[in-house]
Each structure stands twice: as C-alpha cells, then as structure tokens.
C-alpha cells in the first residue's frame, strides 16, 4: 500500500507541476466566463447606443400613420414607387417600406427595399408595427372592443408538483434540473474521456521509455496501474475543485459588475422598453411570477445530493474506464496503434453521450433510459443526466452497486492484460493475443 501511495504522489506531482496543468486549470474558468460576459457586454452596449434607423415609407393605402420610436425614424415619401426608390437610393438610410393599397381581409404586397441584408430582428420589428396597425383596423371593422379582446386572451401555465409515495408534495423544478443534469452529464463524459486518455498516454510513455521493467521489479504491475489511475484521478479532482472555486468567485465578480443583475435581465429590460406600456404590465406580472417560481425551485434543488451523485459517478466511471484505458496503453507501443482497441471503449461512451441529448430528455423513465443508467458502462453519464427526473432510490442504489462491481471487474480484467502487456514491446497485438495474455497464469 505504501508503494501505491508513492506512485500516486509521483503521478500527481508529475502532472500538477507541469505548466500546461496550471494554464488549463486557471485559464479555462477565466476564459469562458470572460468570453460570455464580454459578448453580453458588447451586445448590450450595441443595443443601448444604437442610433434609430431611418425608414422611408411610401404608403399608397393611406391607412397608416407612423410615429417615430426609439428604434425607427420614419420619413414619408410621396409619388410613385420608382421615384421613391430613387430618393432612397441616394441616401444611406436603413430601408424603404412600400405599402400598396390592400384588402383588409387579405393584406399582402408589402415590400421592403434595403441596401444589404439586415438583421431579422429589425425587420420583424417593422413587421410588428404593420401587424399591430392592421389588427387595430380589423378590430374596428369587426366592431370588436379592444378590452373584450384582451379579456379573451387566455394563458395557462401549469404549476408542476410532484407527489411522492408518502403523499409529500414538492414543486417540480424540472427545467433547471434538466439543464443541470444535461450539463453535468456532458462534463462527466469529457472528464472520463480526457483523463482516461491521460492514463493511456502515461502507460505508453512508461513502456516506450523502458522504465517499466525497472519499476515492476520494485512494485507489482497492478500496484503501478492502480497508483497511476488514482494519481490521475486526484489531479482531476483538484482541477475540478479549483474550477468550481474560480468560477464561483468569478461569476459573482462579474455579476456584481452588472449591478447584481443577470445579463439576461438586462436584455429583458431592453426588450420591455420597446413594448407598449399596456402589455408591459401584464408581461411583467407573468414574468415575475415565473421568476419567483424559478427562484423557488432553485431553492429546492438538492445541490448536495446532485454533487454527491456526480462525484460518485465521476469516480466510478473514471475508475472503470481508467483501468481499461490502462490496459489498452499496456498492449500497444504508440498512440496510433491504440486506435483499434479504443473503439470498444469509445462506443459505450458515445452512446451515453448521445442519450443525454435524446433518450433521457424524451423519455426519462422509459426502459431505455432505465437500462442505460443501470448498465455500468453507460450509467455514469446517463444517470447523472437522469438524476434531474427524480430517479427512484432503488434504481440509484442498484446502479451504484453495479458500477462498483463494474469497476472492480474491469480493473481485474485490465490488470491481467496490463501485467503481461507492459513487458511486451514490438509484438503485433490483436484481440486474440489480449485474450491469451488474460489467460496466462501468474
């Protein structure tokens, strides 16, 4: 055990002392929030400082009166469309809007002339102005009171409540949990894969530098393999912890810079300022209800449980795949040669990665989701993504027990291949050879 500890230390220090570790550990949490915050900042700036666009209007129907808004300034054109086009062409203005005479019941023929392709958002802003006006005209024509119409408008939004077997009720927070589970599933996939590859690389390095025979004369091959796997796992945990701390600190700094407002809220305000005040109130009410609900459900998210489940599946999945990647590394002399043996490892990983997007969100309690989160090869990624959907406790326990059994099994299998493989250089290896190594008695 003492020797495993020495190897764990060595493997850990080897990696942590590298510059690339420092760079990756510090820059990743710095870069991504910075990019996102930067993009939001520029977007908001752009909307805030944007000059209103000048729109020429040729209204042949005579049904419209345009008032200038914050976003658009309207210039009325007279005469025929050809002359209007000429006038517009001479300017650098945003667009020329042509409104022909139209039948109110079947409005069409509206055309917008522009110098270059413009953002859909601006164009639909103009469209909305026309639509609103035509709607008002229609209301007049059908003699419908505006208030009656407002009264007709119905919006239903379920309040989601889960009832447990004991009759206990709690409001469901599926949306946030779903996103969280989805993200954690992907993070887990990336972690298992990248650290698994590191193990393989490490084993290949030891083999090609020919240090391995010196080492196995001091320790048992299985000790060397476990020491390496555990050493790299601790690198992963340290890196993950640093990331979480850095991201927390950073995001709170960024948020305080925005005056404790989430960037989305700022955007919302921008949008709201363009909606007419009548609707604004209504929207705000709905929004604040929604907001309260979301905040309420964030409160109820069992963060500790999710963190523990994530940690468990990270370690379990990592240990299981780590041992297999070590075995692959021991069997080959170079990364290129390892391709053929990586395939069967990549397949279940890819399946679980895909199901995070497809199977789990579509039918989280279906039998496919169930089996994928029970079978050890796919369970780490899938169960973490599925945990959002209130997985029954017995399923969770079964999956965890099987995962533990799974990594003990793969470690055993991998260990048997590893002990032979690390001493074999220059031999051509295929699955039959691997099976032979596995069968060799100690």
């Amino acid at each position, binding site marked *: 055990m003492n020797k495993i500890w*020495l190897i764990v230390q060595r493997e850990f220090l080897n990696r942590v002392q590298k510059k690339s570790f420092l760079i990756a550990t510090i820059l990743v949490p710095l870069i991504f929030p910075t990019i996102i915050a930067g993009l939001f900042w520029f977007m908001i700036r752009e909307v805030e400082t944007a000059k209103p666009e000048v729109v020429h209007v040729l209204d042949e129907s005579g049904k419209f009166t345009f008032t200038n808004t914050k976003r658009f300034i309207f210039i009325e054109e007279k005469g025929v469309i050809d002359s209007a086009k000429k006038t517009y062409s001479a300017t650098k203005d945003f667009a020329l809007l042509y409104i022909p005479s139209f039948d109110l019941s079947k409005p069409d023929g509206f055309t917008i002339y522009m110098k270059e392709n413009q953002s859909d958002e601006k164009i639909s802003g103009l469209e909305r102005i026309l639509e609103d006006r035509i709607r008002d005209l229609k209301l007049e024509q059908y003699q419908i009171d505006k208030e009656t119409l407002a009264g007709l408008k119905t919006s239903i939004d379920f309040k989601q409540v889960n009832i447990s077997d004991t009759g206990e009720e709690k409001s469901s927070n599926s949306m946030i949990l779903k996103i969280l589970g989805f993200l954690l599933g992907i993070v887990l996939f990336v972690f298992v894969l990248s650290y698994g590859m590191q193990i393989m690389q490490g084993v290949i390095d030891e083999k090609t530098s020919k*240090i391995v025979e*010196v080492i196995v*004369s*001091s320790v048992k091959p299985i000790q060397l393999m476990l020491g390496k796997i555990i050493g790299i796992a601790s690198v992963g945990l340290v890196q993950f912890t640093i990331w979480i701390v850095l991201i927390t600190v950073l995001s709170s700094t960024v948020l305080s810079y925005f005056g404790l407002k989430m960037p989305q809220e700022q955007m919302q305000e921008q949008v709201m300022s363009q909606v007419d005040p009548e609707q604004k109130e209504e929207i705000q009410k709905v929004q604040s209800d929604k907001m309260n609900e979301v905040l309420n459900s964030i409160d109820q998210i069992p963060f500790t449980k999710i963190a523990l489940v994530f940690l468990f599946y990270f370690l379990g999945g990592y240990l299981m795949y780590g041992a297999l990647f070590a075995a692959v590394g021991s069997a080959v002399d170079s990364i290129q040669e390892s391709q053929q043996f990586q395939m069967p490892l990549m397949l279940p990983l890819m399946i679980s990665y895909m199901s995070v997007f497809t199977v789990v969100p579509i039918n989280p309690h279906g039998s496919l989701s169930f089996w994928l989160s029970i079978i050890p090869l796919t369970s780490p990624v899938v169960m973490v993504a599925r945990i959002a959907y209130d997985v029954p406790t017995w399923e969770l326990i079964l999956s965890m027990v099987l995962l533990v059994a799974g990594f003990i099994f793969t470690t055993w299998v991998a260990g048997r291949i590893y002990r032979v493989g690390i001493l074999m250089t220059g031999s051509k290896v295929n699955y039959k050879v691997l099976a032979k190594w596995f069968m*060799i008695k*100690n």
Partner: protein
Amino acid sequence: MEALVAKGVTKRYASHTALDDVSLTIPSKSIYGLLGPNGAGKTTFIRIVNQIINSDAGEISIFGEKLSERHIGMIGYLPEERGLYKKLKVGEQLLYLAQLKGLSKKEALDRSKKWINKFEIKDWWDKKVEDLSKGMAQKVQFISTVMHEPKLIILDEPFSGFDPVNAQLITENIFELRDNGSTIIFSTHRMETVEDLCDHVALINKSKKVVEGTKKQIKDTYKSNTFVVDHKGSFTINGSASIVSQKPLEDNFYQTVLQVGTEHSPNKLIAELINLTEVHSFIEKVPTMSEIFINLVNGKSDE
C-alpha cells in the same frame, strides 16, 4: 552462505517452455555469469528472481530464505530493456526509484547525493533526463540500480549501449561493490565480459542449464590437454603425446601443438621434450569461454 539457490525452476508458456528444470547455486560475494544465446531463458530466470513473473515449478531461496516480497529491497536490477522517466529531473528520479525499493526519503536523499558526487554529476541534479547525454543517463541508470545497496545485483546485458568510458567506470564499481559484500549476477551473451569479470559461470541453452561452476572448473572440464611449444629444431614424438600440427617459424624455429592423454602431466611432457629439442616456450592451450560456449551450444543443437 549461498546468495541464491534455485532448484528445478520451470516456466511454461502456451507454446513453449522458457525454463526447464533449471537449478543454480550462486555463491555469496561472487561475480556470477549467466550465459546463453538470445532466447535461452536468461531473462525469464532473472524476471522470476525479481518476482516480475512467477515460476510454474521449483524453488528459489535468497541468502537462505525463501524468495518473497520482502526481498525486493535486497535486489538491484538493471534490465536489458532499460530507461528512465524522460520528463523527471535526475534528483527526483533517483529519490523516487530508491523509495520504491523501500528506502525512506531521507536515506534516499543521502545515498543519491553520495553517488551523484562519486560519479561527478552533481550539477545534473536538477536537469531533466531528456536533457542529458546518453552517457550521463547511463550513469544515472546505474546509480538507480545500486543506490539502495542491494546484496544481490542483477545486471542484464549491462554493457550493451554503454560507451567504453562508462563501461570501464561500471566495471570498476562492480568490483568495488563485490569487495563490499554484494553478489553480482551478470547475464550476457558476450564472452569477453565473462572472461574478464566473472569467477562463476552457468551456461543456459534452450531453456536448460548446460553447465555450471567456477571459471577454472569449467575450463578444466573442457580443456583438451593441448600444449603449444616453440622450439629450435624439429622433432617427432611417439607414444604418450601426439603432434597435432607443426609449423616452421624462422631460423630453424618451429611451433608445435601437442595433445596428451588426461593422465599425462605437463612436467612429464616437458621432460620428454627437453630430450628431443631446445624448448623456448611451453604454453598450455586453455580454451576460452567463448570456445567452450560455442562448442556446447553447437553440440546441443546437433542433437
């Protein structure tokens, strides 16, 4: 006491037998040459002693005790396929390898400093191995093999890849280690090494031990009782000795090769020769290890 005694060690793989009932006795404080062509089973035997692999049958004892895990620290092993961690600094490397052999951190530090000074490579302590010249790396490799002061040192083809200067340095250190009480096992197919260094020798061929003993015993066993005589004036001899060849040198000098029966002593032959010719030199023609080795291996393969 014997440093290592192997009895009937056998190792079988699916398609072939790597070691077949091999028994060896390696005396303490000897330099023991384990000879044999490539693929004879030398490395398999060494790996079994290092407990990298297990034997299928037979027993090995080290200094009177049955070989077990706690002997790992007593053995220093320089494998034929050897190397170091390229990205690791020399100092870190030595400390790590010594600690794996069971030394405490402090012991490891003291010993590695001592050896680094002895080999005059103190300045390299903080250098990465990948930045060292090949010769320097070889010195580090040797230090890592012996720094835990093993009682049994196993060197598998130690001079392959070593430059002559390092080979000399290592030879000197091997003698010094032997004088300080270590036992050294040499595995090699290069005979000159054996001739120069070893006092005991075993020959392994095709998974079996062919011969074992001190260098002298083996030479005595395989000598052909042949003598080379330089003399003035030709002669013929009958009875006890027969002339294998006789060639003229210059000025009436000849060189004659004579073979006698096993009961015949050199003195007796000289006495006979003195009566026949003027003897200028008289040398017993002792076979080199190389000759014995090749004869035995070829003899075996004729079967």
